[in-house]
């Protein structure tokens, strides 16, 4: 177990490292960092000074290593646009994004588990078909289109919920609903497939044969097994949600990480963008690692491979 753990850990660090190299070099392909850093109205001598101070004339490899060194000490550099430390900016915004991601995930699970179970229990019937249809629709509706429709109905027509901002929990309802519905289908499919498998298993049949009531068999025995793969998907989806909330945060003017990153693309604010990409890669890697460990703990056979 210890060997397995250290191997997985080492791999995760390596993945994060490579992701950071990619992010770093990708954004340096074009764009004059020095003139962006010098700000507007900078004279050639200012730019020269900046190039010297920040060492922008050094080879990319050297620049990368010094950036990485700073990052490891918790220094993500200074935003070209806002001229404040990147770490402060990210800390100020990350809360909103995490709340949004967790709320969306909760909504998705609340929708996906009952629907998935229902579809599996009544597999092949019209109930199953309706559940599959709901999931197909969730996959097909573009999230930004759904977001605009929700604003139209709940903010404007009914005036129940605010359309933009982050001042209270009510501001998170519409964006979380949008994202939640959007990520429901993969969960639902997984629960459905897992339940169908589990319901066909011997021990469930035995439980049924023992005369346990149907719903107890479903909840106690089958669902528990069907939920194991869901843990892995939660990790993956949570990572995607934090990165994928760009569009939704911008529509709902929700001041979070995704919107910060989107803005920094427009402003060519590389230090912010690099930091966000690195952060998301690390979050993904950590979540996947956690999911693997949880699964390995549940199912010892996985530890061998």
């Amino acid at each position, binding site marked *: 177990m210890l060997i397995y753990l250290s191997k997985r850990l080492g*791999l995760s660090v*390596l*993945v*994060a490292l*490579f*992701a950071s190299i*990619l*992010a770093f070099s*990708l*954004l340096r*392909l*074009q*764009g004059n960092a020095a003139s962006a850093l010098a700000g507007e109205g900078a004279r050639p001598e200012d730019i020269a000074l900046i190039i010297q101070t920040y060492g922008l004339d050094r080879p990319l490899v050297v620049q990368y290593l010094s950036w990485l060194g700073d990052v490891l000490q918790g220094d993500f550099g200074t935003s070209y646009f806002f001229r404040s430390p990147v770490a402060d900016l990210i800390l100020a915004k990350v809360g909103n994004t995490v709340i949004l991601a967790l709320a969306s995930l909760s909504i998705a699970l609340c929708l996906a588990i009952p629907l998935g179970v229902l*579809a*599996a229990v009544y*597999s*092949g019937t019209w109930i*199953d078909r309706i559940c*599959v249809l709901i999931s*197909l*629709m969730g*996959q*097909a*509706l*573009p*999230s*930004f*289109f759904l977001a*605009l*429709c929700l604003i*139209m109905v709940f903010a*404007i027509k009914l005036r129940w919920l605010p359309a933009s901002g982050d001042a209270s929990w009510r501001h998170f309802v519409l964006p979380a609903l949008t994202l939640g519905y959007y990520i429901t289908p993969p969960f639902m499919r997984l629960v*459905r*497939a897992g339940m*169908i498998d589990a319901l066909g298993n011997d021990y469930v049949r035995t439980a049924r044969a023992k005369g346990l009531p149907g719903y107890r068999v479903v909840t106690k025995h089958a669902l528990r097994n069907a939920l194991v793969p869901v843990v892995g998907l939660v990790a*993956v989806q949570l*990572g*995607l949600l*934090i*990165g*994928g909330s*760009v*569009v939704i945060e*911008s529509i709902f003017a929700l001041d979070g990480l*995704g919107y910060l*990153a*989107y803005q920094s*693309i*427009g402003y*060519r604010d590389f230090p912010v*963008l690099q930091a*966000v*990409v690195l952060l*998301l*890669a690390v979050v*993904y*890697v950590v979540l*996947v690692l956690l999911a693997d460990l949880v699964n390995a703990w549940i199912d010892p056979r996985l530890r061998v491979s």
Partner: protein
Amino acid sequence: MTDLSPPATPGRYSWSRIKEHPSLVIGGGMVLLIVLMAVFAPVIAPHDPLAQNITARTIPPVWYENGSWEHILGTDQLGRDYLSRLIYGARVSLFIGFAAVSIAGVIGTVLGLLGGYFGGRIDSFVTFVTTIRLSLPVILVALAVVAVFGGSITIVVIVLGLLKWDRFAVVIRATTAQIARLDYIRSAQAAGASTFYILTREVLPNLTPQLIVIATIEIASAILMEAALSFLGLGVQPPTPSWGLMISEAKAYMFFSFWLIAIPGLALATLVFAINMAGDGLRDLISPDRRG
């Protein structure tokens, strides 16, 4: 998911078998209709999708009180015929979906084949590269690249193609690993067939069903991503009609002229829905054992 039966016979996927899968027939039929619409756009479209007439702007569709048959779906904010833009927009969506997934399919399949067939170090490398790719936030990276190189259909296709190969690699790798252990591959190896021959002639044909299923899912997802990029103004650039761009341009009008976003929004949803439905049907057709 995995199908380990010997090479497919044509009869397996005959019309009579396909007929048993209503979602494949309905979904596939819808996709076919949209493809035909895209191919014959110049014939069907009543107007030039780019011709603007800024004295006839935001005319509502024909079913509204002041709509007219001249512009069945009305006109947009620059007075361009909405139906014509919608028809031509199908071309953009489908082209980007197919082209991006072709690139992604090649990358993912090559990686998956190599990793699954050879195993060992090569396999570790493939898994490693795939994990790196998965750790990158797709939308952000795509946005950043498009912002640096400028938005165009070509750039969007390349970016999505380079980003969306992960599912191909994962599935093809797993399937190849299983096929590689089968007897007929073993005997081909023993007979001295070259690795290239085995991979392309013996392994690859058996992966076709999986490839088709993944490709449909990925095409649908690539179409949605193009729409999202265009919606943010960083994808396909005006005046090219793209459904995502049409929604983006219409969003400011949504409170008073809802049809302006509803029409491209529903078109997009219908296309993606149809592709996914067809994909579901294909999956059922290919691996009947997975049906509930």
